[in-house]
């Protein structure tokens, strides 16, 4: 049983004043990859954005590689409703800290930096990695030949699939010790999806633990060791790869007959 790399304890959060997810417990070791499966709009992306520090958790803790990522203590009771506590309290999570610790989140959608070229984007990732050992530009170009081909083009002239590849490439260069991929194949044609899945499998094989959110159960099966079911803002189930049924059965598990 290898060490726990990402340790999420009793995490709750959302967008003030609406709570989106609650009491999430998640432990991912460095040797495993996990998947999170569930319907859209139930808080998966919000959970990921909290893990990577874009939004503050309301309660609970996030440990990565033994280090606490959030500031200690729960969000204090906001006694005076109209006082802007945000102005005087420090942020509980710093995305820079999370990224530099090695938890890299590749977001859903792939806008990236529309006016920068691929090369510029990758060099930004290089400078962000500053000294830590991430993938080299040569290595990601080997993984994604298209990225090498289109390196002098601005991102906004790339196709959706190519942009996704650049996103993942940039994420790899930024020295990840764990990679979060949020719906990497969303809206892509089957051919490109094939390519991406293959590439992600290659990434997996290098030993990098991946947290994968996707609707494609077959894809999930190839990559992950453990699957978490997520709906209505909570983790509602957990199963190993061997126990995973097909898409339809999973949906029934989540919603019962009524879905």
């Amino acid at each position, binding site marked *: 049983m290898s060490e726990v790399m990402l340790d999420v304890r009793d995490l709750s959060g959302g967008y003030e004043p609406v709570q989106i997810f*609650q009491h999430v417990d998640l432990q991912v070791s460095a040797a495993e990859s996990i998947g999170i499966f569930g319907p859209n709009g139930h808080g998966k992306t919000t959970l990921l954005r909290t893990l990577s520090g874009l939004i503050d958790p309301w309660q609970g803790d996030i440990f990565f590689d033994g280090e606490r990522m959030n500031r200690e203590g729960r969000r204090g009771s906001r*006694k005076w*409703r*109209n*006082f802007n506590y945000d102005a005087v309290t420090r942020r509980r999570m710093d995305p820079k800290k999370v990224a530099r610790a090695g938890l890299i989140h590749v977001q859903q959608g792939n806008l990236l930096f529309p006016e920068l070229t691929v090369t510029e984007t990758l060099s930004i990732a290089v400078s962000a990695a500053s000294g830590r050992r991430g993938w080299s530009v040569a290595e990601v170009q080997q993984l994604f030949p298209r990225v090498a081909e289109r390196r002098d083009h601005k991102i906004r002239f790339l196709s959706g699939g190519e942009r996704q590849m650049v996103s993942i490439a940039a994420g790899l260069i930024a020295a990840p010790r764990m990679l979060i991929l949020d719906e990497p194949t969303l809206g892509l044609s089957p051919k490109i999806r094939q390519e991406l899945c293959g590439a992600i499998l290659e990434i997996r094989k290098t030993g990098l633990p991946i947290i994968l959110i996707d609707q494609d159960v077959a894809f999930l099966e190839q990559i992950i060791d453990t699957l978490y079911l997520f709906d209505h803002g909570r983790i509602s189930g957990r199963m190993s790869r061997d126990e995973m049924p097909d898409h339809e059965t999973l949906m029934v598990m989540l919603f019962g007959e009524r879905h």
Partner: protein
Amino acid sequence: MRYDPPLQKTQGLWPLLLAVVALVAYPFVFEATYFRHVMILAFVFAIVATSWDFSLGFGGLFNFAHVALFAVGIYTYAILAKTLGVSPWLAILAGGFTSAFVALLISIPVLRLDGIYVILVTIAFSQLLYLIVISASSVTGGTSGMVTLPTLTINGYRLSGDGRIGYYFVGLGLLAANILFLYLVTRSRLGRATVALKDNKYYAIARGISEARTRALTLMASAVFTGLAGAFYAAYLRVASPDAFGMGFLTLLLSILLMGGAGTIWGPVIAAFGISVISEWLSGFGAWQNIVISVAIILVVVLYPGGLWAAIQEIREAVDNVRTSTLARLRRNRGRAEREALTGATERMIRTRFAEIAVADTGEADKPALLFCHGNSACKEAFYKQFRSMSDTHRVIAFDLPGHGVSGNGDPETTYNVAAYAEIAEAVLADCGVDKVAVFGWSLGGYVALELAARGNVEVTALAIAGTPPLAVVPEDFGNGYNPDSHLVLAGKQYFSRQEARDYGNSATAPISADSAFMHRNLPRTDGRARVYMMTKISIIDWPRQMRMLAEGRIPFAILNGSDDPFLNHGYIARLNYGSIWRGAPQDIMGGRHAPFFNKPDAFDLAFYAFLRDAESGSDAAFRPSRMAATA
């Protein structure tokens, strides 16, 4: 941001009348001209600020040319009354017209722009107007402005006489007319269209609301009284200066708007008085005046964006918290004998991590335990009839929810939600030394009972609810499960007027009578925040877990609604998926209304006893899946 509800019904009516009386009486009591001068200025600034708030706060238009509209009013009066010799009163009216016309001009470029571009365009416009005024110096006096403008007279009586008392009342009258005007406009079709556009722009446009026309009309509406105020200001000071276009005025009015609270009518009015006083006091300090006001703006915007009005609301809430918790504390001791006589059970206080909780407990440990959970704004004594009728066979336990009855108030953010209530129920049972219990929940208490059972920390041997539509997806099912009864709106309302308290008590429990007098008397003690926070925190409860529990049907479960419960959508409740429900369907207690155990205690007790018996005996025949689940 919304403007306030109809004035007559709010609790703000009395302070308003008081203020009006005070303002009218003021000049007769205090003769000092200086303060009267400040008040007149305050009237003018209040008009300009509230009108600005109408376009900025209410309408969401980032119009930074508003102060220029005020200046337009000033110059209109100056040119018409002095240069052209028009009657001063007509000149004032004209001020309103020209201002509205200029607003129409401004609105043209603004019609299709958004956000920052509106700010930039309107600032450019105001600069343009300033330049025009400066350049057309033959007409407007250029940078020097115009002086000795005609003063206002009525039949030869100069309003500036008698310590300017005439101006005082005209100004007050203008302010009153302005507030009335804004009040009416926000409730007019224009006001509704504005709100519709803000809430959901594309839906509103699809319904035929023209965004362009709404914006133009909003700007014009905000300009009318601003222009009038400008003209009045010119008549009062008898000076027209291009300074009116400048940053000093803009900053002053912005500070009034922000510190009063954007989006509210009364905030800027109150702030206008305060800031006029302060500003006049500071005017002797030269540059420091602007610095202080600017620092104040930054502080308000950064730290307390709601401004004065929000602060007033919070103070009101704090005061109400003191009122209700004091009431609870007083009644705790004083009314104890009466309450214990009513239920026949002893009452004690227990400490939980949320609040102090009052528990009524008949105490016999050898009898099976029965827990009653009461509803919104009620108290444990709602079940006094069951206390009396069932204490022979059961140990009857009931507790006051926090913020209700004689329990204490709690931190609203953590305490006033169903999950916390369930945890409190567990604490109550633990304190009673009970780990196996049958539970009955009424209305809000029904959700508490469901949550308690779903949590699984205590063994629930039987679960019955009344007046509670089980929810799965919130807030959709809330709309499905309840009738859109006007009194239901009160369930989430913070402050009840006396009439509202009576209405809610009537529908939720029973009309006032010797029977229900206790309940009605208890209602005003309820911490209004409990009602509000229960609604806002509704999404954090694990409703699907409750539904899954009902669908699995492992706990003997019964629904005992009043057949004529006005709140419930009985069809919705009947159609839900119950894995195992007593007699196969929700039961109706005839004529029970929302509280059948209270209104028809005999019929209720009969059914309830039968249910408990069947639950205990484990009779399979009595518990069947609901028709819907059976056919699935």
